[in-house]
């Protein structure tokens, strides 16, 4: 069989760095030309820490967070369970198995089109890569809204500023940046910038995505959301990561791994999210 027609590969990669950059938040980088050359913003990797281990059993999905040079990929993750705890304990030179790049990735804005990026917490993971690509292309006007619960959770501000993106930071308790929710700030900006129709890219908690998607649909604005799904395989086999499709009777569910993880807002049935 001709393997070159398939975009995905399985690679055992050697970790270049794995450091805690915020409260329980880690940034990991590793060289891998095969993955880096194929990766697009919004795509993800299925990662396994130990091939022999039976617990945890399944691979876990991680958004591709960005590229360094042309041969290194990064992932950003929060330690939330056994798998991410094991991942966080790895050191330079340790290996992991990564399958990717998986999923569809973001549809980039047209030339000159204004892009509004809305990230809630770890939702920054795929949007950082999108920011890299958009700021490098230099023909888009990009504004990012970044929200965290408290100042303790805030990460990546310097790196984002380094990319030259227009950045607004919110925290729910007001301990850093503007007090409030990132969705409100995005909404206010839309009201102020009524002259042109920006395209919104959002990633974060389901409740945040629901609000953004519904408001974007109501305003008749293009909006892409990057969903998280509980995946068994990431390869379109197990059909675990179902997301209810809006309207469509022939396709009651989308699969986040295969049909997404990026969806145009109107594709999803937000009532059940």
């Amino acid at each position, binding site marked *: 069989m001709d393997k070159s027609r398939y975009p995905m590969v399985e690679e055992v990669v050697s970790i270049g760095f794995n450091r805690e950059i915020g409260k329980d938040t880690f940034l990991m980088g590793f060289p891998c030309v095969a993955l880096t050359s194929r990766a697009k913003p919004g795509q993800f990797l299925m990662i396994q820490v130990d091939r022999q281990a039976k617990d945890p059993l*399944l691979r876990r999905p991680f958004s591709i967070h960005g590229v360094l040079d042309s041969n290194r990929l990064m992932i950003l993750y929060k330690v939330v369970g056994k798998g991410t705890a094991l991942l966080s304990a790895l050191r330079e030179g340790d290996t992991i198995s990564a399958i990717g790049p998986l999923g569809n990735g973001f549809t980039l804005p047209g030339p000159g089109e204004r892009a509004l990026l809305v990230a809630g917490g770890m939702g920054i993971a795929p949007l950082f890569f999108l920011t890299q690509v958009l700021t490098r292309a230099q023909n888009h006007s990009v504004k990012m809204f970044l929200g965290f619960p408290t100042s303790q959770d805030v990460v990546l501000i310097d790196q984002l500023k380094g990319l030259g993106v227009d950045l607004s930071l919110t925290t729910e308790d007001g301990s850093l940046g503007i007090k409030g929710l990132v969705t409100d700030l995005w909404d206010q900006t839309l009201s102020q910038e009524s002259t042109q129709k920006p395209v919104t890219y959002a990633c974060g908690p389901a409740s945040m995505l629901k609000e953004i998607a519904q408001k974007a649909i109501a305003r008749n604005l293009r909006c892409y959301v990057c969903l998280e799904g509980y995946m068994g395989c990431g390869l379109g086999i197990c059909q*675990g990561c*179902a997301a209810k499709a809006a309207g469509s009777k022939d396709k009651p569910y989308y699969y986040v791994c295969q049909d997404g993880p990026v969806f145009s807002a109107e594709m999803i049935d937000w009532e059940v999210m």
Partner: protein
Amino acid sequence: MGALPELSVDIGGLKIKNPVIAASGTFGYGDELAPFYDPSLLGAIIVKGLSLRPMPGNPPPRIVETPCGLLNAIGLANIGIEAFVGEKLPSLATIKAPIITNIYGHTIEDYAEMARRIEGVKGIAAVEVNISCPNVEQGGMAFGRDPDSAARVADRVVENTTKPVIVKLTPNVTDIGLIAKAVEAAGAQSISVTNTFLGMAVDVATRRPKLANMVGGLSGPAIKPMALYLVHEVVKAVRIPVIGLGGIMDYHDALEFLLVGARAIQVGTANLVNPKAAIEIVNGLTDFCLREKIKDINEIIGALETKGEDHEKKGDRKDKSKANF
């Protein structure tokens, strides 16, 4: 190195080139794992369970990981038999391994109708009858928990197809041997043991079940000892070939099932974790036979030693296998 060992086995009217079969629901519609290796190298491929009409599947969350296990309630989401035969099957023509369809129905007549639809279809080598899915309200496991209804389903399928019929049993019964005997008497050519074990997981913080369907089916290494035991029970109960599955992750696990008498094995959950799991098991079995100077894999099948040897001799064997496995 000598000649390659003979790995082919007969699973009841169907001879396959090696005893490693991709299990239904973990190999898509047949070619999803082709990016990782040529699926033609497997003994056979059992595609995602099909019903007469397309099924949407259950609402999410559909899966949750438990220690060494995967609890799922997919709900047999599938495109339906028509779409499979019309749209998917033609693209599988390049795969040289036999394609086996897994079917399930809401009524006994559904099973019969599915068998009729498949009967004339070139490119389908055999039928696996699912009377064991725990995740659908009607049908599925309901038929597999009673010897009479299990036999009726098997009988109606056998009546309507000349293709070999494999019946896949549920472990969620008191006496699996009884069910196995019933489907054997009804004319099934082989039996797959076992589908998933019923299970639950609860989120303590929200006090809600972790699966939207409340209950699901457990697979993965967590169930392997129980599945192995059930294979042993069914092998004792029937004369037709038994295909073993349940938590097989590597060739060593596969050998355990073959030793208790499974004629072939299926690889399921392992495919999700390691896309190359099934082909690695084929290669592992080949290497094992070469190392152990086993000319034919059939020498292993049912070769479980249960009596006679003294401890010293057993000890020798143990050491030997440790060195070689």
